[in-house]
C-alpha cells in the first residue's frame, strides 16, 4: 500500500512537467503580451520593450520555459509580472482559502446529498423521492452565478443574516459553500440513490434482512458501505474540481481563491502566476484522486493495491 502511494506521488513529476509545458505553450499561443497589458494604452513601444527585457520575455520560448523549470525545481516560482507579488506567497494564500471553501462546500454537499440519496432510495417513488430528485435536477441545472446572486439578495440584502461577500470568518463561507456545494449535492444524491437501489437488490441484503437485522443496520452497515464506491468516485471528482478553484463562486462572492487567481492571471497574461496556479491545481487534483483510491480500499476490503 505504502509503495503504491509513493509510486503515485512520484507520478506527479511527469504530470506536472506535462501540465506546465502544455499551459506554457497555450499561453504563448494566445495573442497578447503581459508587458503591453502592464504598460497600458498610453505606453510607447520603448516602455513595453523595457518591461519585456526585465521579465525575460524577449528570450526565445525554449529558453523561457527552461528558465522557469530551472527555478521551479529549486522552489522559486518567480514574481507576478502584474503586481510583483511573489507567486509562491500568492499560491499559499489562495490555496489555504480554497481549501477552507472546498471543505465547507463538500461537507454541505455530502450532508445534503447522502441524506437525500439514502432516504430517496429507501422510499423509492415516494413523494420525498420525487421531490428530492426534482430538487437535485434543479441543483445541477441552476447556474452558480444566478444562485449566488439570489442567495446574496435573500440572506445578505433582505435578511441581513450573512455577509454578501469577502473572506474572513466562517460566516463568510456559508453562502458560497451553499452555492458551490449545491450542484455537488445534487450529483451525490443521485449517485447515492442509484447505487443504493442497485445494492438493495443483492442477495446479501436479502440475507441480512432474513437473518433479522434491524432495517437501519441493513441500510447503514450492509447496503451503504457497499454502495459507497461509486459515490466516493463522484465525491473525489467534485472535491477535486472545488480545489481546482471555483471561479464563478469566487467572483460572485469576491473570494480570494485559486480559481480567480488563475483566470485573472490568464487575462493579464501573467505567465508566472498562471504557471504557478496550474502546478497548484494539478498537484491538488492528483492528491485528491490518490486519496479517493486509498479510500476505496477502506470501504471495500476486497480492493487492494500492490
Amino acid at each position, binding site marked *: 500500500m505504502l509503495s503504491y502511494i509513493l509510486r503515485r506521488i512520484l507520478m506527479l513529476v511527469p504530470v506536472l512537467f506535462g501540465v506546465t509545458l502544455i499551459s506554457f505553450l497555450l499561453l504563448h499561443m494566445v495573442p497578447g503580451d503581459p508587458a503591453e497589458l502592464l504598460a497600458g494604452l498610453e505606453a510607447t513601444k520603448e516602455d513595453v520593450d523595457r518591461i519585456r527585457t526585465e521579465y525575460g520575455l524577449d528570450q526565445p520560448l525554449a529558453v523561457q520555459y527552461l528558465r522557469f523549470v530551472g527555478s521551479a525545481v529549486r522552489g522559486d516560482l518567480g514574481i507576478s509580472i502584474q503586481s*510583483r507579488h511573489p507567486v509562491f506567497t500568492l499560491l499559499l494564500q489562495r490555496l489555504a482559502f480554497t481549501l477552507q471553501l472546498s471543505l465547507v462546500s463538500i461537507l454541505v454537499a455530502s450532508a445534503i446529498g447522502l441524506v437525500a440519496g439514502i432516504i430517496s432510495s429507501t422510499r423509492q417513488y415516494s413523494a420525498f423521492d420525487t421531490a428530492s430528485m426534482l430538487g437535485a435536477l434543479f441543483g445541477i441545472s441552476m447556474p452558480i452565478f444566478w444562485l449566488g446572486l439570489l442567495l446574496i439578495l435573500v440572506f445578505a440584502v433582505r435578511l441581513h443574516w450573512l455577509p454578501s461577500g469577502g473572506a474572513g470568518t466562517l460566516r463568510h463561507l456559508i453562502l458560497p459553500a451553499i452555492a458551490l456545494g449545491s450542484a455537488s449535492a445534487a450529483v451525490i444524491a443521485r449517485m447515492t440513490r442509484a447505487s443504493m437501489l442497485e445494492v438493495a437488490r443483492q442477495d446479501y441484503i436479502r440475507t441480512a434482512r432474513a437473518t433479522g437485522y434491524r432495517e437501519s443496520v441493513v441500510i447503514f452497515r450492509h447496503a451503504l458501505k457497499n454502495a459507497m464506491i461509486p459515490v466516493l468516485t463522484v465525491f473525489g471528482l467534485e472535491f477535486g474540481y472545488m480545489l481546482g478553484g471555483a471561479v464563478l463562486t469566487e467572483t460572485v462572492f469576491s473570494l480570494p481563491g485559486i480559481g480567480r487567481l488563475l483566470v485573472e492571471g490568464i487575462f493579464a497574461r501573467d505567465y508566472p502566476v498562471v504557471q504557478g496556479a496550474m502546478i497548484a491545481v494539478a498537484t491538488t487534483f492528483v492528491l485528491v484522486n490518490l486519496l479517493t483510491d486509498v479510500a476505496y480500499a477502506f470501504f471495500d476490503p476486497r480492493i487492494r493495491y500492490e
Partner: protein
Amino acid sequence: MRRTWWGFGMALLVGVIALAPAAWAATQPQVGGTLVYGAGADPDSLDPANTDSNPGEAVGRMMNNFLVRFDAKLNLVPDLATSWTQSKDGLIWTFKLRKGVKFHDGTPFNAQVVKYNFDRFLGPEKPLKASLHTPIIQSVEVVDEFTVKFTLKVPFAFFLNNLAHSATAMVSPEAHKKWGKDLTLHPVGTGPFKFVEWVRGDRVVLVRNDDYYEGKPRLDRIIVRTVREDSARVLGLEAGDYDLIVRIPPEEVPRLMREGRVRTYAEQSNRALWVKFNVTKKPFDDIRVRQALNYAVDKESIVKNIYQGLAAVIPTLVGPLNNGYAPVKSYPYDPAMAKKLLAEAGYPNGFKTNLWTPKGRYLKDFELAQAVQQQLQTVGVEASLETADWGSYLAALRKPPAENKADMHLLGWSPSTAEARWGIYPISACDQFYPRGSNLGFYCNKDLDELITKAVVATSLKARDQRLREAQELLVKDPAAIYLLATKETVGMSLKLHGVINSPLELVYVDKDTWKEK
C-alpha cells in the same frame, strides 16, 4: 388666546431643543470609523511612478501628495508646493515648498526629496511613467531647503498638469532606496492615510496618518476590497457590507434612487469614447467619408437609451472638464447629409468594413459599438463587429499600419493630466504613429500638429487655450474619429458617508475630511 400662543411657542422651543442634537449629529462631522470601499479591480501597482490603472491611482491619492494637485473640478491648487513662478521664456519654474511635512516613515519632505523623485524619473531606472517627464524636464536643482528649481528642455504650458499627474506623487526616498522596484508592495507617501497591507485579489488596508500636514483625518481605517462583479458590488452596498462602491451599472441607478436606501452620485468624467478610423485604409482616407459617418450616428439617442443619461455627447476627441476643452460646434444627427457625402465620395450604396471593440473595459463599450454598427447600417455602411479580451485587443491594435487589421476601433481615452493636449496629441499627431505613440488610426494633419505645438509653447493660459480651441475646431472639420461621448462615473454610498471625492479623472477616493456617521 395669548396663553395658547405662549403654549405653542413653548412647545416649539422644547421641540427645537430636543431635536437639535440629532440634527447637529447629522451635519457635524464625526471622527473615527472604518470605511469599506468596494473597488472593481486590484491596483496594478502602489508605486505611483509605475501605476497605470484607476484602482492603483485612487488608492495612491489617499496615500500621497503632489507638488500641485487637482481639486474635485480639475483646477490646479497648491499641495506640497505653496507657490511657484515661471520665467518669461517658460523654461525655468521655481517652487516654494511646504515646511514641516513628513513621510509616513518619518523622512522629512524638502527640496532634496523633490530632486530625488525627479532624478528617479529622469535616471536609468525608467519607471513606467518616466516618459511623462523625460521629454520635458532638463534638470531639477535644490535652491535651498524649501525651494526647488526646474529647468525645462522646451517651454511646456502643461507642466503643472504633469506635476499633478497620479504618477508624480512624492514618495519617500528612504523607502525607494530600500525597496527599489518593490516599492509597489511597501509604498510610503505623505498623504492622509498610511499603507498597512495589500493582499492581492482581496484587499488593500490603510490607516489614518495622525501627522498629516492638513490635519488629522476623520476616518480611522480604510479597507479597499476587490469586488469584480458589478451586481455583487451593488448588492454588497445594499447589504451594508460596503460604505462606498464604484462603477454602478447605469441600469441599476434608477432603482437605487427610487428605493433610497443608498445614495448614488454621478460625476462627469473626462473619459472620451470614440471610434477611430484607420485612415491608411480605404475609404477612410476620404475626408467626406469620415464626415459622413459622424453625421450618421445619433449620439443623443445613444446617451439616452444605452447610458440612461449617464454620459454626455462630446464634439471631438476631448472630453469636458479637461483644461482647454472647447465646446465647439460639431456634427448633428443627419443621415440624409451622411448619404449625400457618401455619394459624393463615390459610395452611394455604402461599403463593407469592420469595427473593433473591447468588451467590459469601458462603461457599456460593447453596447455602444453595437449601436454605432446599427446606425451605420441605415446609411449603407455594413460594419462587422470584432471583439476580444483586452490583452488580445491591445495586441491586435498596437500594430504598425501594414499589419493593422482594424478599419475602425473603439477606445476610451482619459487624459490623466486633465488637459486637452493629452486628449489629442498622443492619439492623433503625425509623429505618434505606433510604435512611437498611441496613434493607432494613423491620422495625420500637419495643421493640427502645429496648433498643438503652439499651445505647448504658449506662456499664457489664454493663448494656450485659444490654440487648443482652434485645434478642436480643426478636428471637427477633418475628423479623426466618430466622436461619441464622455461617460459619467456613478458611485454608490451609504447614507451615512459624507465627503467622498468622485474626481472627473475617474478616481474615487476619500481625504482627511471624509467622515462617517456612527
